[in-house]
């Protein structure tokens, strides 16, 4: 009897989990199917598997609908922003973790507290400031904004890691006559490689998907990042479901590739702020 009951419970559990899995993964799976079908096929039946894989649609979106431009812009902005934020965030985090100096706590708290700021509090003024400095509507301006946007979380994750490195390592380095900079490059950064890769992956994903700053700070067609490009394409080609789906996949694929290779790192990074 009890075995029967357990089996029955098990069955219910499996059904519930399957339903949730369909809910979680279904929409993405559906889009990936539609990205390989033409709009006429989709109009005929939106929920069918591709009869023939129209891979050429990707080439068409890439060449004819400016996706190559959007994609390149996104790659440029994200790579530069992540490189800069990792470097200067790492330097600041090293400093907060390894030295005791006046105002240390105040500075750290000021930087850290911006994590909860709603972006609206900076965005209008940022728009004005970037216009004044001639950085409005430039990828440079957007990159710098992104650096500032991701700086607090980067410093937060790295600081907690640097602080846990045994001080023996630093003492040994000092005895060997290392300068403070050399200590940073030869001790802190290499030892913190796991934490660095966590922040790099986290920042890459978040910035790749970023929309609000981009929509305010970029208007030029040739400077649009992928999310902006997709939004524009959606507005222009409202009826062309098949092509829009292809465009969506162009934005999704890099994320999924990173996820396949670094799923554990990525989950760690995304949840870094939540678990104290």
């Amino acid at each position, binding site marked *: 009897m009890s075995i029967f009951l357990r089996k029955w419970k098990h069955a219910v*559990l499996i059904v*519930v*989990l399957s339903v*949730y*899995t369909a*809910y*979680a993964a*279904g*929409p*993405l799976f*559906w889009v990936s199917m539609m990205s390989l079908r033409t709009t006429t096929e989709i109009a005929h039946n939106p*929920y069918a598997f591709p009869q023939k894989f129209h891979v050429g649609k990707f080439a068409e979106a890439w060449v004819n609908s400016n996706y190559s431009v959007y994609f390149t812009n996104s790659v440029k902005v994200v790579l530069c922003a992540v490189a800069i934020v990792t470097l*200067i965030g790492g*330097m*600041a985090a090293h*400093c907060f973790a390894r*030295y005791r100096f006046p105002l240390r706590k105040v*500075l750290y708290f*000021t*930087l850290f507290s911006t994590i*909860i*700021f*709603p972006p*609206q*509090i*900076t*965005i*209008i*003024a940022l*728009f*004005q*400031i970037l216009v004044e400095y001639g950085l409005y509507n430039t990828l440079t301006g957007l990159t710098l*904004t992104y650096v*500032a946007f991701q*700086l607090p979380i980067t410093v937060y994750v790295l600081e907690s890691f640097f602080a846990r490195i045994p*001080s023996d390592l630093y*003492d040994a380095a000092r005895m060997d006559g290392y300068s*403070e*900079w050399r200590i*940073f490059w030869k001790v802190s950064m290499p030892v913190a490689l796991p934490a660095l890769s966590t922040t790099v992956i986290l920042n890459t994903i978040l910035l790749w*998907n970023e*929309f609000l700053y981009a929509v*305010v700070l970029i208007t030029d067609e040739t400077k649009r990042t992928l*999310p902006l490009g*997709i*939004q524009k394409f*959606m507005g222009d080609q409202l009826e062309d*479901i098949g092509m*829009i789906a292809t465009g*969506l996949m162009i*934005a999704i694929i890099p*994320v*999924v590739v990173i*996820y396949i290779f670094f799923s554990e790192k990525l*989950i760690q990074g*995304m*949840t870094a702020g*939540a*678990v*104290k």
Partner: protein
Amino acid sequence: MSDTVIKKGSFSLGVRRDLAWPIGAIVSFLLPAMLVYVAFTAYPVLRTLFNSLHQVLPGRPNVFIGAENYIELFKDEFFWQAVKNTLVWACTAPLLEQFLAILLALALYAKIPGARFFRVVWFTPVLMSFVVVGIIWMWIFNYDWGAVNVILRELGLENWIRSWLGDPSTALPSLIFVTTWMWTGFNMVVLLAALHSLPSEVLEAAELDNCSWMKKLWFVMVPLIRPTILNLIVLSFVGKMKVFDLVWIMTKGGPLWSTETVSTYVYKRAFEWSTFDLGYPCSIASVWFIIVLAGVLLLTFLFRQRGKLEY
């Protein structure tokens, strides 16, 4: 004896490090980050607060108008509608996410087969851009061929069918549904990590006391991971107070202001409406900034308080 010597030794080493502050190195380590922070965060925040007291028109000097923007804001019914929508969102979505996430985390914690696969799959939605998510869900809510209505038709629930995003009474719940889809997996992963880090002695003690599974869950496990749950609620609350992208893509605040959030309203007033005045949206942003900070402080305080009372 030798123990104390060693302790003293390491202690003095520690002090040496503490006292030695190579000012040049510290400044050069901090300077780039601080410059970026001042130029792209601190200065814009101050400027927004400054703007909120002025009339800011392009190509003209700012005119000081005191609290006029704030008075206007107080009478602005669209603003209050936006506040109401955002608060509804920020108060319901976190609880919904937590509820589902706890159930899912427990299912995976019970070591069902394929747990790793489920975990990876459930986490995926949060990795997508809001733009991508928004467009996909616009299609899912489509009246004619969207999955929601197709499923309802299959189930014979014809009278439930509606234009989900076009109906003011269902538009906001539909959007909340989408954010729940996105964030539940994320919360689940964090909770699962918390569950796995529970001390096994406590759980074993509960088992020795002949606790049933449900009792163990409710009286031992949930209280132990409560700090994580509360953290997640605060995090989710903050996220929902800022929500912009999804609304902008899916409904632009419509129909009839039913999904307008404070963020979209700020954007509209600053860059869409042809009022050209940047002072007024800055005052909205400033008020909202203070409300979000107050909300976070209040929640943290409340949760701390409860913790103190019960232990």
